[in-house]
């Protein structure tokens, strides 16, 4: 068993609890144990906090990292926004003495110190990494392959960019989440402009909803054109934008897509035999029934 401190984030537990449940239960079946990271706060959201004051962003993220350092475990998380905050702050504070001292000055008030003793991973990259899990192990864990379904993959920006602050080689046409989708028996479909933003991140959703939905709609047009039965992603904020965004697009532009949006954890949960109720799929804004009818 590889043990990680599980950083939950906000959106998954609050909006898509099935995503959280699936992460904990599915990872166990492939040799990963996610331990609760007690006392964690918001990551904090890079767009919202970083845009206002970077020092707050550094200090809050550093506090979350310190909690995992105290557990002596690397962090695993399931959200690209959290990944940007926690991974990037961890790397920057490790490299930049001045920044680390500044953060530690704040942390000292609550008797904490950032040491830089752990690493931060996205659960999806651990699933793909053969040293920890690997595609084969995922394939072996499947009891109910998602045969005859076409799934479009959305990576999300903060996972892969900026390229020079990440350890992924390709931010323009990556294929590794497609490999994970293939491992659960579905057919990943390529669609135009796959790497475009979901429309939500960077504070765009909060600042200018119409603009943000316009970007989302552009993606949905392309995903629909590719004939996808569902969309999968590895970021609950992208999930929120695509899922609830479709309702907002219907209200604002009068276009109805009806494309189910599932976090990869939820897909893997389905493939490992979890029921839609266990995955709380009824809490999704867009009905997953057409997709489930194909699978169950």
């Amino acid at each position, binding site marked *: 068993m590889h043990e990680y401190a599980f950083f939950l984030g906000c959106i998954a537990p609050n909006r898509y609890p099935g995503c959280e449940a699936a992460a904990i239960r599915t990872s166990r079946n492939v040799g990963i144990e996610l331990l609760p990271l007690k006392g964690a706060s918001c990551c904090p959201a890079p767009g919202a906090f970083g845009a206002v004051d970077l020092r707050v962003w550094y200090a809050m993220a550093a506090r979350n990292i310190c909690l995992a350092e105290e557990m002596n475990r690397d962090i695993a998380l399931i959200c690209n926004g959290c990944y940007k905050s926690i991974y990037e702050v961890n790397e920057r504070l490790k490299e930049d003495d001045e920044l680390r001292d500044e953060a530690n000055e704040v942390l000292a008030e609550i008797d904490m110190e950032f040491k830089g003793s752990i690493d931060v991973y996205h659960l999806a990259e651990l699933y793909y990494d053969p040293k920890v899990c690997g595609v084969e192990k995922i394939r072996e864990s499947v009891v109910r392959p998602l045969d005859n379904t076409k799934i479009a993959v959305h990576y999300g920006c903060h996972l892969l960019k*900026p*390229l*020079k602050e990440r350890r992924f080689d*390709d931010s*323009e*046409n990556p294929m590794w989440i497609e490999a994970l989708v293939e491992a659960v028996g579905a057919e990943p479909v390529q669609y*135009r*402009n796959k*790497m475009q933003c979901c429309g939500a991140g960077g504070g765009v959703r909060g600042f200018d909803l119409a603009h943000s939905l316009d970007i989302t709609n552009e993606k949905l047009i392309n995903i629909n054109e590719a004939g996808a039965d569902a969309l999968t992603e590895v970021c609950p904020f992208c999930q929120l934008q695509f899922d609830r965004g479709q309702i907002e697009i219907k209200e604002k532009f009068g276009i109805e897509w009806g494309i189910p949006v599932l976090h990869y954890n939820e897909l893997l949960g389905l493939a490992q035999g979890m029921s839609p109720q266990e995955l709380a799929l009824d809490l999704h804004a867009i009905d997953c029934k057409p997709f489930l009818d194909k699978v169950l």
Partner: protein
Amino acid sequence: MAEEKKQPRIGVFVCHCGTNIAGTIDVESVKDYAATLPNVIVADDYQYMCSTPGQAKIIDAIKDHDLTGIVVAACTPRLHEPTFRTATKEGGLNPFRFEMANIRDQNSWVHMHDPEGATAKAKDAIRIAAAKASLLEDLYPKSVPVEHAAMVVGAGVGGIQAALDLANAGIKTYLVEKNPTVGGRMSQLDKTFPTLDCSQCILTPKMVDVGRHPNIELHTYTEVESVDGYIGNFDITLRKKARGVMSQDEATAKGIVGGGCNGCGDCAAACPVIKPNPFEFGMAPRKAIYIFHPQVVPLVYTIDFDACVKCGLCVEACGEKKAIDLEMTDTFETVKVGTVILSTGYDMFEIEKKREWGYKQFDNVITSLEFERLICASGPTGGHLIRPSDGETPMKVAFVLCAGSRDNTGVGKPYCSRFCCMYSLKHAHQIMEKIPGCQPYIFYMDIRSFGKMYEEFYYRIQNEGAKFIRGRVANVLEDAKTKNLHVYAEDTLLGRPVDLEVDMVVLAAAVQPTENIDPVRKMFGVSCSQDGWMLEAHPKLNPCGTTTAGVFLAGVCQGPKDIPDTVAQAEGAASAASIPIHTGKVELEPYFAQCLEEKCAGCGMCISQCPYSALDLIEKDGKQVMHVTEAKCKGCGTCGGFCPGGAIYMQHFTTPQIVAQIDAFLLGGEQ
């Protein structure tokens, strides 16, 4: 070595360098401190030590105070050591009695926010220098004769120009080129900006000249194998790659009367093997026996032995000329030259690494060099620009500038490639001229039209109707049905996204140093900048030289530049390379290792340590002792540090001198 010991008498001079030094360092207190140091007889300061009055201070002090050593605390030996050595000499001392303390570049400039620390550091530096100056000895430079010949590596337009200049100056010149023909990148271009001269038309006369100049010995299809020696006496071994075809001269030397390749091409007509022609970036076929293009120099065919099936049809077709030898192997030749010019040029950055632009994914995304071949009358399409996907004439073409240049993502290159803006303007002009109604769209970050008449050319293209969109292209997508391309960018002047459908996209790819050039660079002892370009001795005052004496640079191998700048640098390099040759001798700095024969055990440990192959063992008075070839020795001290018996004496960096410096630093001057 050991001279009559006389109590050292040192003079210390502290320079203000305007406010460069005096603005940070308390020169007055540093000077007063210097006067208290052991052996220091006189301490002085001056506004500009390098000025004539500043130097006069040194000359007068030597005479007035009978000094034995001089310390100047100022900028850096790289800048002014020769100046102060000359002054020391004029004062009547041996020039090597001078020692410099760097209190500017490595002190006041970097510590400008810490005057107290900088002042303390300056005192340390002067204390250390004065300690060494007390122990300096007279040294006498040696001079070595210079071979009356030069070598130019790389025969693009820079190498050709440099070779012609050297040859016209009466110097025997070896021009070495790895390809079967001279001409380089310029041969692949259609027109040149801003005059729109045909590139081949202005280059071929020079190609022809190098081919027949009596002072130029042309070595095409040849690479540098190894380099030995030093300025004035480089022994360079060349690998003449197996060409499979003899020139007429080679045939004559073998006694084949009237034989050798005359370029008739009968062999290629007979050859059954068809391969893509790399000169045309694979857009045209060539045979296994080939020439790049009709104007090659020398006009001798070459066999691509990786493709050749050795069927022998070409040998038959060649007939009486007997030019072809299918069993030819690489041969080696060593030549001796006095100086070397490297002009090894550039390659294109592998723009497919920037996946967002779809090169090698979409048919109709091409690079600018491919565009040059497609628009060129002697190119694969006879000068008709066509879309690779369907052969149609494109009516809307997007040019992506800074494709991989000025790129801080870590994928591309951080620098500006310098000539892409201009050639893309030229390309825009060419399509508007050749295809009526064809619309070029230029996506740019900045248009850098920096040269003479370049800005005017830029306006001309604007007036001709090219559309300019300021914004870097985010990505390029293909419409699977039509094979048209969608170019997405932000128009940063309008602050709006752009989605433009075009027939063809041309990527102005960044340039990078020639592939596999590093081994050659290292053979000649030339360093490189962070980006891999060869490093000049000084970016402003010695742009053609390198840190290796006798090795010079020309053209893009030193950094991106256009044809005029390349030719200008080539002429500069040729001039610089001819100076030692015409002088006939070079002076070597006398920092040689010396063998103390009474201590040397002849173990030979030092020989394998020497990076310059300057050492060997000789028989002397019945025992083996180490011997130094002084001209090869660079005074690095590796052997001296390694010698188990302490038998090696490093002139100007003797053990007592270095120990005195360390003591002076650690013990605050008490020795």
